[in-house]
């Protein structure tokens, strides 16, 4: 069961402001999603190894070969917050 506190915590982790009304709404919706997935518990899975990828693929690598990087102006094109070739962020910590 997802509680109101859980929703508030998830909101904080995602840095999303959630109103009182939304908190209740999301709690109900998230619980209904969980219930839906709960149907899987009805299947016997004791002897099945956990699956994390639908494709049974291992070992995908690239060789250590240099490719061209983006020009600095392209990198910074999408932000207004820049200084001396760097992205600028508000005070943190």
């Amino acid at each position, binding site marked *: 069961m997802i509680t109101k506190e859980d929703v508030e915590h998830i909101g904080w982790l995602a840095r999303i402001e959630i109103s009182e009304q939304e908190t209740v709404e999301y709690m109900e919706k998230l619980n209904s999603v969980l219930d839906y997935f709960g149907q899987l518990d009805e299947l016997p899975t004791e002897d099945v190894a956990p699956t994390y990828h639908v494709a049974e693929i291992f070992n995908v690598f*690239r060789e*250590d070969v240099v*490719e*061209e990087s983006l020009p*600095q102006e392209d*990198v910074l094109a999408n932000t207004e917050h820049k200084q001396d070739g*760097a992205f600028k962020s508000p005070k943190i910590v």
Partner: protein
Amino acid sequence: MVYENPDGVKIGLEIHVQLNKLNTKMFCGCSSKYHDSAPNTHTCPICLGLPGALPVLNKKTVEAAIKVGLALEGEIAEETQFHRKNYFYPDLPKGFQVTQYDYPIVSKGKVVIEGEDGEHTVGIWRAHMEEDPGKLVHIGSIEKSKGVLIDYNRSGMPLIETVTAPDMRTPKEGRRFLDKFRNILEYLDVFDGNLEGAMRVDANVSVYGGTRVEVKNISSHKGVEKALLYEIMRQKNVIRRGGKITQETRHFDEARGVTIGMRTKEEAEDYRYFREPDLMPMKVSDWIPRIKETFPELPDAKRSRFIEQYGITDMHAKSLTSKIMLADFYEGVCKEGTDPKQAATWTADVLLGEFNYRDLVISSYDGSTIGCINDKDHSITNSVRVADMVKLISLFADGKISDRAAVEVVRSILDGEEEKTPLQIIEEKGLFKAEDDLVTKAVSEAIAENEAAVQDYLGGAEKSLNFLVGQVMKKTKGTADAKTAREMLVKELKG
């Protein structure tokens, strides 16, 4: 003698090592050679975390991790994979860091160091692969920051994080562990420790009656001893005054040599690790035999071989193998037919001593020349050729120059503006050992010109003899053998 550890100090280290010898980053083809570049010039959609960009793992990262695991005598996992560690901080453009969680590639290793009471084993809990975040520059100090500038050139560089057991008991053991670990990494040729940010260390420290405190931001292997000394003293003082140690994260300020408590977060850390769906799991344990085939000789093995093969002392062998480049240089000198014991003395004692005196750290060896950079200013470089060392030692061994003159040649090689061979330096400075009659002449002159000193000496003032020897050395420009000069003076004056 067993080290008692009276304060119950326990130190564990987390060491981040950048695999900066690789050509490219961990998940994209951006060049890893960004250290002298303008900000955000070594980035692409993958390492900037732009939507839709897909990472593909650099094979060499995995090979390097296996090498490190084998060198640490650890277990290499049959199957291993990546996770996402989610948190908001501007050094991570994606909002998560790709790292390893419950299936690290390496586990259960060990490193034997020279401890307070002889050989001491430090356990390795794990070593895993992860990506380096970008670099933040705080506008103002970290405590009074007005904002940050972010450079993503470092973002996505391959790292290996190694976590030790809390087996170290003094700051000195902490430093020795790091020195040894760094040396091993250089032997494996996966890492250049002289590059900025190549090795970053966090330490977990506790004392009796306290709890574990994490010290972050120890950026040099020399800083670790200072940070640990301070933190242990701080914790002991708090307990002595009846206070309580709180479990917290502290920041090491290297310039001031202190650790500073960071504001604690209201919420406990919650990284919501989950499997990285963009990267496939790996089964790479079958690479081990191939990697072992080309595995380099590690420091301890080389040290034993040097003692056996060259008949040198353990002190010399230890010193010479403390850097792979120095060990290779030494063997280069020996290969030219130089007496290994002489080569050890002139390399480990004289050359290394002169390097240290000038704050030079060894940074390269190309088979014929050993290169150094100044530890405080990396733009200052220096070098010494194997051929010059061989010639110098042979001139000394043949009695053509005194040991003092030979040291002067080494200094001239390091301090001279132009590149010169030892023979050129010896000729220019007139350093060839003086012929006996030259010394005889200098002795007579010294006696004739310094009557007061002669009288003092004859009157029992032994010190005056030192003055006269000095005069002879001056007259022969240091080419006379001091012992011979002294004997000749005594003979001349006292018959």
